[in-house]
């Protein structure tokens, strides 16, 4: 009787363990799928952007302020035109949003979350975002949490994650164009 109870107990334990591992594996695999899609969509936008960049006046590594301004304006105009039909959700699909909120909640806990919330709300109050508009050039950009950047899906060099108020946005690095954004990122 004792042996039978022990056997049943061991079986239940084994079942619970394998179910849990299976659950995790499924979740990780589905996350990977979402991340792969997100990263490949971002790469597609980056390639399009680099094509546009190759067509605007070149900029050297010892440029004058006027050359910098011209280059930025040309790229901005080209991107805004090419992306005139871009809509919210191009990168932040509902699956991506769900996953990213989960990553933020996991990575930003305790003082990290408090530190970021305080800074973001303090420094970006009143910033309004729209896809394909430009992040206000006179407003500062809040530094991104390094540990969160390590956990989020990776972006190409030309794009940046940025928090603004309750939003998480993806901006073009050199023009400040809003590629996409999601709400309630720090909720």
């Amino acid at each position, binding site marked *: 009787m004792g042996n039978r109870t022990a056997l049943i107990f061991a079986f239940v334990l084994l079942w619970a363990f394998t179910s849990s591992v299976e659950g995790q594996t499924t979740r990780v695999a589905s996350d990977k799928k979402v991340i792969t899609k997100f990263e490949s969509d971002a790469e597609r936008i980056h390639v399009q952007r680099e094509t546009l960049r190759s067509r605007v006046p070149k900029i050297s*590594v010892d*440029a004058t*302020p006027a050359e*910098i301004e011209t280059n930025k304006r040309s790229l901005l105009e080209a991107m805004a035109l090419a992306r005139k039909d871009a809509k919210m959700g191009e990168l932040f699909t509902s699956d991506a949003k769900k996953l990213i909120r989960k990553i933020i909640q996991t990575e930003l806990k305790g003082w*990290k979350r408090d530190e970021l919330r305080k800074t973001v709300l303090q420094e970006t109050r009143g910033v309004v975002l729209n896809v394909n508009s430009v992040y206000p050039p006179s407003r500062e950009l809040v530094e991104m949490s390094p540990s969160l950047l390590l956990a989020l899906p990776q972006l190409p060099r030309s794009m940046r994650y940025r928090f603004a108020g309750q939003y998480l946005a993806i901006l073009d690095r*050199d023009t*400040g164009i809003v590629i996409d954004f999601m709400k309630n990122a720090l909720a």
Partner: protein
Amino acid sequence: MKRFAALILLSVVVFSGQLSSVGAQTAVAPAPSLTLPKAEGSIKFLAIGDTGTGGPLQAELAKVMESYRKVFPYEFVILVGDNMYGGEKAEDFKKKFEDPYRPLLDAGVKFYATLGNHDESNQRFYELFNMNGEEYYRFKKGDAVFYSLNSNYMDKRQIKWIGDEMGKDKADWKIAFFHHPPYSSGGRHGSSGDLRSILEPLFVQNGVDVVFTGHEHFYERLKPQKGITYFVTGAGGKLRAGDVKDNSPMTAKAFDTDLSFMLVEIVKDTMHFQVISRSGATVDSGTIRHRDD
């Protein structure tokens, strides 16, 4: 006779007025006085941050920087970010950087910039910031290697670059500079703890000696943390008066009542520093020995 006496009296008044006016100027800007050794062949530079307002305070401090260069011929300046506040059109580069520092630029002083939270990444192309088109980069001066990092966006690529470059470098001195302070006693911002959790292990492992940062608009020298000396030198154009927390256990010395910059000289295994306020007074000075690897 009365007219003659009045003339004499008037002359005395005018003359004494001129004297007191000279006296007042002297009180505001005393002659530069150095505590640094000014050794032959040493590495001499200036560190400053949060400069880019284009306002009168920045201009006044720039004049003091210029006057100190006459007695301490520093070769280059490191800018720890917020090089331009509130917009970056071509005229902003002139107003917020070129005009105030024109005498230094004309004298051949090189500026090496890092990006702050108010700076656009396009500054990396600006010829006078010597960033060579990169948001993070390194340069060597004598026995010292300087790493300019982008603390706005410390991503996987940059973290790998830091580890790779610092691991390869065999220089006596390893000096990092960037905008956000891993340690700070500021009431407004305080320490960037998340950044610290990523950078500090890299710095400790790779023998970084000194770190210069800004973001906080005051001067602070932190007590050495895991063998590394951290400075906050972010009062180059703006001041957040009284922002350093009283009795912070991390503070070795702080100054938050006026703008300031740092003069630095490396002589073999010793770094000498002297901090100068807008009035030209010395508000901190000392030496740091480089870490034994």
